């Protein structure tokens, strides 16, 4: 790119040289010396005039344009108009250019400050959301304490005396509903934390075989109640470094779902794990009703509930799988499902054996 100044000087320099040269040739070849002399002086004057006017034009056009360009560079760097003075020039177009630049700049400045305000407001809303959800969770849990406390007491005849069958059934119903409510409060809180990236993850050594055995032990009673087989199919013996409680939480959600989806008496649920170099892959497999392809795409979304006649008995919050997804992703892994209708479903989740980048605050 060539500066406008250089073009001006080149054009005027060449043209004034040509005028001067023609004047000189005229003088040297003139028949009458005095006429040649006058022509030479005239040519010199024209040439000098051209050069002088170039200097003037350069000053009044290129200098202010340079200044304006400089202001614009400064503006794009700082997002602020540093020089609000009018440009020193007599040229109307340049004044207009500067005025437009100034008013455009002011609009940009204003937009940016409004944006900053919005960002601050959004951050404030985020903070309030966290405060609100922990407050709500606390307020909802508090009345659950006496509800669950008294129900548990009523369930113990040595504490509160014997209940007749109807009373006992009623008390059991209250107990299971209260537990459901408690779980729902917990799920909502976990989901909110996941949304805000506020869920914390621990890191500890986990013996995989031990982990799977303890999960089997925890869920065996619930599965047995419905005559469902829950077994481990894995010879995995390694140790991984991750968050045991969170892995348990994922297993717990997947197994509870599986229990809901298999037929009592015929149901079989298998859990297991296998490792490769960097990852461990866990699975929960069932021989239940299966999940259609359309539903497979949606099930990890919040509040999604499969609505078919076979699953209407389900009464989860619709948050379980969204939480599983959030947790595995938080642990640096992923979760997916493979399923055939009326044959069964396998949920896989894979996480790093060593933490990659865990968003633990401490």
């Amino acid at each position: 790119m060539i500066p406008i100044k250089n073009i001006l000087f080149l054009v005027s320099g060449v043209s004034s040289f040509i005028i001067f040269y023609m004047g000189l040739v005229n003088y040297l070849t003139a028949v009458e010396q005095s006429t040649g002399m006058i022509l030479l002086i005239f040519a010199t004057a024209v040439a000098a005039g051209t050069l002088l006017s170039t200097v003037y034009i350069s000053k009044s056009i290129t200098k202010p344009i340079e200044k304006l360009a400089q202001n614009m560079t400064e503006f794009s760097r700082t997002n602020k108009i540093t020089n609000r003075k009018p440009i020193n020039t007599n040229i109307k177009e340049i004044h207009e250019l500067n005025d437009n630049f100034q008013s455009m700049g002011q609009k940009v400045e204003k937009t940016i400050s409004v944006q900053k305000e919005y960002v601050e407001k959004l951050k404030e809303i985020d903070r309030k959301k966290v405060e609100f959800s922990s407050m709500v969770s606390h307020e909802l849990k508090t009345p659950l304490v006496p509800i669950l406390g008294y129900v548990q007491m009523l369930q113990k005849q040595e504490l509160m005396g014997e209940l007749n069958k109807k009373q006992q059934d009623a008390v059991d119903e209250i107990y299971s509903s209260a537990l459901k409510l408690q779980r729902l409060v917990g799920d909502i809180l976990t989901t909110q934390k996941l949304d805000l990236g506020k869920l914390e993850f621990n890191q500890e050594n986990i013996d995989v075989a031990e982990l799977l055995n303890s999960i089997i032990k925890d869920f065996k009673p619930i599965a047995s109640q419905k005559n469902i087989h829950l077994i481990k199919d894995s010879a995995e013996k390694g140790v991984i470094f991750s968050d045991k409680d969170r892995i348990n939480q994922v297993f717990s959600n997947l197994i509870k779902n599986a229990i809901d989806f298999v037929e009592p008496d015929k149901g079989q649920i298998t859990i297991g794990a296998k490792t490769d170099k960097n990852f461990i892959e866990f699975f929960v497999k069932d021989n239940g009703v299966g999940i259609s392809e359309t539903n497979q795409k949606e099930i990890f979304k919040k509040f999604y509930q499969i609505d078919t006649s076979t699953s209407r008995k389900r009464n989860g919050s619709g948050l379980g799988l969204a939480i599983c997804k959030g947790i595995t992703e938080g642990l640096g892994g992923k979760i997916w499902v493979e399923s055939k209708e009326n044959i069964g479903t396998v949920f896989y989740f894979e996480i790093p054996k060593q933490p990659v980048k865990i968003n633990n605050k401490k």
Partner: protein
Amino acid sequence: MSKNSTIKDSDVNSTHLNILIIDDNEQITKMLTTFLELKNHNCIVANDGEQGLRLIQENKHDVVLLDLAMPEFDGYAVINALESKDQLKNNKIIVFTASTITQEELDELVKRGVTSYILKPIDIDLLHSRIVESATS
């Protein structure tokens, strides 16, 4: 639930404990008192942290159940006050809370000298075994 555990219950019931309950929620303290008295323990209730702290310092209790979230003088304030007078470890304090507290925060409290913790809502069997464990630890 556990109807066949009467023998075990009577064993545990034979331990008669003095328990101080510090919680601002009267429905919770009432439920806890009902339960623990049915288990043959003796309960004293404080409805705020200040009163609770005074009772801890005046009398000896086998176990103190301390709620964390209370208006003004909360459970943390009680713990801080006891710690500053080097009295935290002499008392068997079980923190119980419905707040969204992290595992790390709970571990930190135990490191400072709190005996145990339990999260609300509570499993009354678990609560009772925690109380007996803490009293005899």
